[in-house]
């Protein structure tokens, strides 16, 4: 049984459970909404996870790299935060994608797939915001922390990984939570590059009957997703509060 089959099984099971308690106009298209949610969650998990690592690298480059690394890290944050996500998606999918198979060669399967382009652009976009948030977190730490770590014999990388970043993450966590919610909302834009996420499914269901309920159901589902994320983030925040730190 492949991954796709598991996803279908999940949406079938959820819809079977929900069919008696939800309105008929929802139950009719239920599997499509649930399929869409699964794609949205999938994109969200992958892009936030990979984006976090890239963001941490960029933040570290910003505060402790050489001049060229610093300006590269600055440009990364500046360009990806200074342009709309939708423009970034379209540049890669419609712009670079228009170069076609001959010019893109082995990269063609990537540019052809809305899902892959969506994932890559969401990841890069969120990494730029995360870098900025972590940089702010690192800036709040007293310089003595780094000096103490180095005088214990840690290398710069070790000091960063063991001492500075963990504290910066604790400081930056609430801001990161906001960014995660914004990423979830931004992920709806991948529907403009043919990805059938929750928004993509919503738009295609809407196109069938122009029923306003379609949007309402979708809004409720996004709200539930946001609520779930908020609770999850609060749980992690509580775990991060250790050793008497507020």
């Amino acid at each position, binding site marked *: 049984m492949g991954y796709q089959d598991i996803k279908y099984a999940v949406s079938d099971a959820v819809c079977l459970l929900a069919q008696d308690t939800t309105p008929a106009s929802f139950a009719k298209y239920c599997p499509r909404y649930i399929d869409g949610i699964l794609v949205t969650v999938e994109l969200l998990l992958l892009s936030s996870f990979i984006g976090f690592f890239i963001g941490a690298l960029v933040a570290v480059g910003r505060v402790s790299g050489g001049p060229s690394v610093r300006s590269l890290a600055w440009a990364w944050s500046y*360009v990806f935060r200074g342009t709309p996500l939708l423009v970034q998606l379209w540049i890669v999918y419609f*712009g670079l994608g228009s170069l076609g198979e001959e010019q893109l060669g082995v990269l063609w399967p990537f540019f052809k797939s809305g899902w892959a382009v969506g994932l890559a652009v969401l990841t890069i976009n969120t990494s730029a915001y995360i870098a900025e948030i972590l940089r702010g977190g690192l800036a709040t730490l007293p310089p003595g922390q780094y000096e103490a770590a180095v005088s214990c014999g840690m290398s710069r990388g070790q000091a960063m990984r063991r001492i500075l970043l963990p504290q910066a993450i604790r400081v930056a966590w609430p801001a990161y939570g906001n960014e995660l919610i914004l990423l979830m909302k931004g992920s*709806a834009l991948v*529907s403009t590059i043919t990805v059938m996420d929750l928004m993509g499914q919503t738009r295609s269901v809407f196109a069938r009957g122009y029923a306003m309920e379609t949007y309402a159901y979708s809004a409720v589902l*996004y709200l539930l997703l946001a609520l779930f994320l908020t609770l999850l983030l609060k749980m992690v925040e509580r775990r991060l509060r250790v050793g008497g730190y507020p």
Partner: protein
Amino acid sequence: MFELLSFGDSGWGDDLIIGALLTIRLALASLSLGLLFGLVLAMMKLSRLAPARWLAEAYTLFIRGVPEFLILLMVFFGTEKAVATVGQWLGFETTFEVPKFAAAVAGLSAIFAAYCCEVIRGAYLAVPKGQIEAGLAVGMSRWQIFQRIRVPQLWRFALPGLGNLWLVMLKDTSLAAVLAIDELLRVAKVAGEATRNPLLFLLAAGLLYLIMTAVSDHLRARMEKRLNRGMAR
């Protein structure tokens, strides 16, 4: 290749600039309406009436959890439906089309207001308690404290947050391209399709957005500096 970006009949440069101007108009219109609405929401949140607070809380919760794209589509198709329904109810056989620009402004300002009310509320509460007590001590009424101590400082405390929200909204105007409003991104898309060179035009649009956000950020920094003159840091 770059002659495609030139001005005049042969190039698309002027069309892109006109699109960018529409983007700015869209953002400015949404800013003014959104500030007004945000102010009302902030007043509701600070109100002593519990239902007013609940209503404002519910509204921000909704906007914060639902994608901007979905909100815009809801406003766009929702108003169209509402107008048609009301028309039918009154016995008109209308084919009235809601102006797209107005629908986009309504949607964008509805989003802006939800975030903006938090900034205004925070700025209102950021006035140090000692100043309020000092006002009371010299015999000011609540209203006098409000208009002489709180309001004059509101702008200074709110500006950094509002600047951020402006940048967010400026970028969100690009969603109007999906509603077929001829703002910058849509002009770039159309030009790219017409000339079979989408990469060039979308990159040009990206660059113009970058310039607009950079200029906005610069202006905000200058305003902040001006507002904080004479303030101990």
